[in-house]
């Protein structure tokens, strides 16, 4: 068997607690507790689970926005979870994240050209200004936004438009692994379908690998090769979409399926 693109081994993440006036010493909060999974190259692993169960934290720890308190994060067999920030640099370009909150993740003082150019300047310093701009226009096209939006600022966009800019930014540096944290939750069903199809097309063309966090079970079923169910920091169930959706073992998974609103 070949090495998977990503292997997470016994990952635990603690957030530092605030010092309490009475207890004095702060008690850290364990948000992710002994989690292990792998993602083969070119595949999609879906991550579902109740709110606050540690899905975003798991994703963030892979790109070091959350600490890797215990365990290992292996990218093509190399432990990147325990590297210093400086040694991690080569992986910054390979792993990108589409954030759950499209509002806080875009710099309000920068127009779209600036937002999309910044990662290009860092990771492709040889591009000319004109080439960079052409790439930015191309990225907007990919996420179905007109090129005139290049000079607009984040506050001038609707929620769904902003989310698409976040997606364009993640695609800008041609990553191999994208952590998609609720990438389509803010989108109406028609744009959602287009973006999901786009992510799948890109996966085929560029052999992209996805960790796909979402609440919409129909979307997760559609896009995932394998699904993980999280509850209270732990993975409580894992399997193929068919196994999880047709034959759920865990009580939580069952309630989740039962609560999907029916159309008629």
């Amino acid at each position: 068997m070949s090495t998977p693109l990503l292997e997470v081994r016994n990952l635990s993440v603690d957030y530092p607690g605030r010092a309490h006036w009475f207890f004095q010493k702060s008690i850290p909060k364990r948000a992710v507790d002994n989690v292990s999974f792998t993602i083969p190259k070119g595949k999609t692993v879906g991550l579902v689970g109740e709110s606050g169960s540690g899905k975003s934290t798991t994703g963030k720890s892979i790109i070091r926005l959350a600490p890797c308190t215990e365990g290992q994060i292996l990218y093509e067999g190399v432990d990147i979870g325990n590297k210093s920030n400086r040694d991690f640099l080569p992986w910054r370009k390979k792993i990108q994240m589409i954030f759950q909150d499209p509002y806080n993740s875009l710099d309000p003082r920068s127009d779209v050209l600036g937002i999309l150019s910044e990662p290009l300047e860092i990771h492709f310093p040889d591009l000319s200004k004109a080439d960079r701009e052409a790439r930015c226009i191309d990225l907007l096209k990919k996420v179905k936004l007109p090129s005139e939006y290049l000079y607009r600022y984040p506050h001038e966009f609707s929620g769904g438009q902003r989310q698409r800019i976040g997606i364009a930014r993640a695609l800008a540096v041609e990553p191999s692994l994208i952590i998609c944290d609720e990438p389509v939750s803010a989108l109406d069903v028609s744009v959602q379908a287009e973006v999901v199809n786009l992510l799948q097309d890109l996966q085929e063309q560029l052999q992209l690998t996805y960790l796909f966090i979402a609440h919409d079970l129909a979307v997760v079923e559609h896009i995932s090769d394998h699904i993980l169910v999280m509850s209270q920091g732990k993975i409580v169930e894992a399997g193929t979409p068919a196994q999880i959706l047709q034959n759920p073992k865990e009580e939580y998974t069952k309630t989740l399926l039962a609560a999907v609103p029916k159309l008629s």
Partner: protein
Amino acid sequence: MSATPLLKVEDLTITFHAHEKATVAASGVSYELNSGEVLAVVGESGSGKSVSALALTQLLPSAPTCVVSGKINLEGINLLSLSEKEISRYRGKVIAYIFQDPGTSLNPVYSVEFQIAEAIKIHRPEISDVHAAVIQSLNEVRIHEPEKVAQQYPHELSGGMQQRVMIAMALACNPRILVADEPTTALDVTIQKEIIDLLAHLCRERGMSILLITHNFGIVANFANQVIVMRHGKVVEAGTAQHVLENPTHPYTRGLIACIPRLGQKRHRLTTLPTDLS
């Protein structure tokens, strides 16, 4: 059902002037919201759903950046003609918002308890035990360990927890009209269902009306009385939720309903709108 229109929006038109051109974000939008009812607004991203809702209490940038025309009638008063001082009395108490953008409602430097307590003190001065009311409101939105979460700051909460805190804050105002802009996007279906049940309960108990912006047709089907469909700033279809979902007449609505991914019907590709429509 006795349907008295509480809020009547007529010919609402919103134009942004920026980058040396005018963008019409909403054009001739009209609808009625009845007491104790839920009006769902669905439609394409960027079709003007959020800006139309923000216009109700003059929350958009002022002229000349943004020009708003039309009438927004609430019990004989045109909200658009009120001064800033007058309209501010309506915000929260009469019309409360759950904003699409958590940053608009949650202040990063204050704890959850402080922010909900603030809303309670302003809008429900009769409540003496504010702390208990804060905890109760967190319980209502199904936050685990409410005592602990009350002491936390927004950045320490998960996306779904932030969203529920915003819902708790809006409900703490005890408004007559709740504008809920995509209130459950960050919530898994189990909590989503509980929140929707809670809102439905408040409609019945308090006679609260809800303007619900959503792209979730499951919620529309189970919760809304009326629905309007927006596209390119215009209302393209309106009617009772059941009627619009079962007999959509506008091709855009039909296309939209066909795009809904359905559980257990895994396909190679998701259905998108035909290109002559999108």
